[in-house]
């Protein structure tokens, strides 16, 4: 990881008495692909705009490349943005749009044309220079927006939900292309999305935000496998939550009661006796077995309510004996036949020890 390229130091921002970014501190490192992820209205765009210089902050500091940048106007920041709406200039051609930044800097025309061609090639739009913006598809406009930003060779590229207007297939392609572009350019990408799949597949690091605060920062694997709290666990991926209670602990291990089944798990967060907890398990972490005496111990009991065949996986909806419904996912292997359960078939539900995430039940 490089050195810090952007640092938020206790940054707060409000609109009309409503705090939108609440005392956030965050370091973003040179060359990384960082994603701000969170539900609509949590302040992601506002964070980006503060880096771009399009929004001031009420308190705290935004430090860009070692310089406190609160009072540096947008035009003088070495940062370019791909806007959610693309914001392409409608009275200019593709070429004029992309050349805009360079021509403002008064670069010689030959150099500008060369760089524009290069940028067009990079976003796979070679030969589109003379087109009018209105004559482009959504995906092409999005590429022009990217080209217009990267042609200036900024230190940091900000991308505000650049894929949200595209259809599903194009979105998946663009994810790959953006990753490749990031590798090729080697600059810092700060990407905003509320699509957790997008965040997980593209990012080096994810910042999960909610209500103007950071809930967790970490690599995709970390965020997915070790969510810091219930919000992150719920927001990222599908999860089954079980209510439980700590019945005893020696500091490293603890005895817990989950759905009236006693088990022993690691105590990673200093849980204490009688504390209410929630146990989180991803659908693919569950182990399903036909009910018999040889079921792995400990296990929960339930019946198969629904079986959804998905090609490479089989998803089950299981109703526990307590009445609670859970979702599980099983991958095919050689003994594939085993996972075709009959409706209402009794099953044991367990999981690989250590894969559970135990969180305090706040």
């Amino acid at each position: 990881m490089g050195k810090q390229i952007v640092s938020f130091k206790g940054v707060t921002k409000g609109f009309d008495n409503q705090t939108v970014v609440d005392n956030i501190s965050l370091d973003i490192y040179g060359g990384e692909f960082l994603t701000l992820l969170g539900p609509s209205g949590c302040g992601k765009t506002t964070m980006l705009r503060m880096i771009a210089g399009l929004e001031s902050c009420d308190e705290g500091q935004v430090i860009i490349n070692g310089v406190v940048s609160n009072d540096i106007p947008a035009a003088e920041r070495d940062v370019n943005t791909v806007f959610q709406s693309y914001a392409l200039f409608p009275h200019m051609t593709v070429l004029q749009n992309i050349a805009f930044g360079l021509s403002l800097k008064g670069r010689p025309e030959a150099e500008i044309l060369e760089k524009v061609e290069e940028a067009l090639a990079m976003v796979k739009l070679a030969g589109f220079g003379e087109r009018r913006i209105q004559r482009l598809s959504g995906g092409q406009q999005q590429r022009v927006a990217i080209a217009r930003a990267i042609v200036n060779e900024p230190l940091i590229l900000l991308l505000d939900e650049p894929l949200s207007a595209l259809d599903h297939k194009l979105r998946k392609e663009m994810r790959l292309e953006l990753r490749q572009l990031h590798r090729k350019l080697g600059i810092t990408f700060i990407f905003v999305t509320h699509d957790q799949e997008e965040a997980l597949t593209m990012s080096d690091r994810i910042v999960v935000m909610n209500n103007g605060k950071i809930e967790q920062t970490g690599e995709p694997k970390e965020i997915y496998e070790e969510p810091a709290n219930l919000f992150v666990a719920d927001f990222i991926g599908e999860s089954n939550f079980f209510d439980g209670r700590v019945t005893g602990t020696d500091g490293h291990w603890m005895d817990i009661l989950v759905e009236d089944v006693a088990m022993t798990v690691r105590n990673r967060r200093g849980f204490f006796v009688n504390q209410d907890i929630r146990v989180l398990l991803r659908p693919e972490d569950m182990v399903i077995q036909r009910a018999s005496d040889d079921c792995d111990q400990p296990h929960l009991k339930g019946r198969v309510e629904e079986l959804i065949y998905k090609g490479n996986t089989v998803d089950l909806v299981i109703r526990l004996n307590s009445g609670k419904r859970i979702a599980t996912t099983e991958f095919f292997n050689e003994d594939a036949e085993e996972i075709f359960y009959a409706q209402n078939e009794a099953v044991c539900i367990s999981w690989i020890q250590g894969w559970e995430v135990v969180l305090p039940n706040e």
Partner: protein
Amino acid sequence: MNKPGLSHILTFRNTAIALVVTWTLLFIVVPTLMIAVVSVLQRDARTFVTPAFSLESYMALADPVYLKIFGKSFAYAAMTTLLCLLVGFPFAFFLARTRKRWQKPLLLLVIIPFWTSSLIRTYALIIILKANGIINTWLRAAGIIKLPLEILYTDIAVYIGLVYTLLPFMILPLYASLEKLDFRLVEAAFDLGARPVQVFTRIILPLSLPGIMAGAIMVFLPAMGLFYVPDLLGGAKSMLLGNLIKNQFLVAGNWPFGSAVSVFLTMLMLGLMAIYFKTMKRINTSVMEEA
């Protein structure tokens, strides 16, 4: 399905169309035709016109004396248009960028002067501008000047009168086009390194061109015809095409020539409108059309 309702609407529509057509014919087409006809007739000292075909009025248009008046009138109108643009643009921009709930009341302020006849408002300007008028009284009371400023009966007074009367016609179309301007484009330009002046010249100005053109036409044409403004506020030298036309009809008694000047002015208007619509069409098919 709903036959009575539909025929009702059709009746209403036909009545409305008939009314508008009659009104247009009666008050616009017929008078224009009458003027066009008079312009190609001969002048007569007693009856004003005799029914004999003649193009001498149009030949007279080429007389250097009149060409000079045309030139001056053009200059007045062009200067008025420019002043209106300079004064109106910042206001229209501010208006388009304020909160929605403030826009309506502010627009009303622009429109309120229309409730009073512009002739009366021009008289009011005399009271404000004259030697012992409001401006001079204030300035002298404040000790800024000793002798009264000579504003009334100068070109400055004419410009004040013209700009004051015509400013709303500049502001309204400018506002209409600036209000549609997507401010995110301005932010994008800043993001790409544009200084405020560059944002203005490269983004705001080109995108508000339709409004500027509409406003310019709506100011430029009337500015040449508002004869009472130089009559009331200007010196002896201030003269617009409107004054020329008025004088030919009311003073010189040369109806055919006055009509010829009117026809010339109408042609000019049609020409400018044609240019405007052609440009608009080009802009519409390229810039304004959203993908």
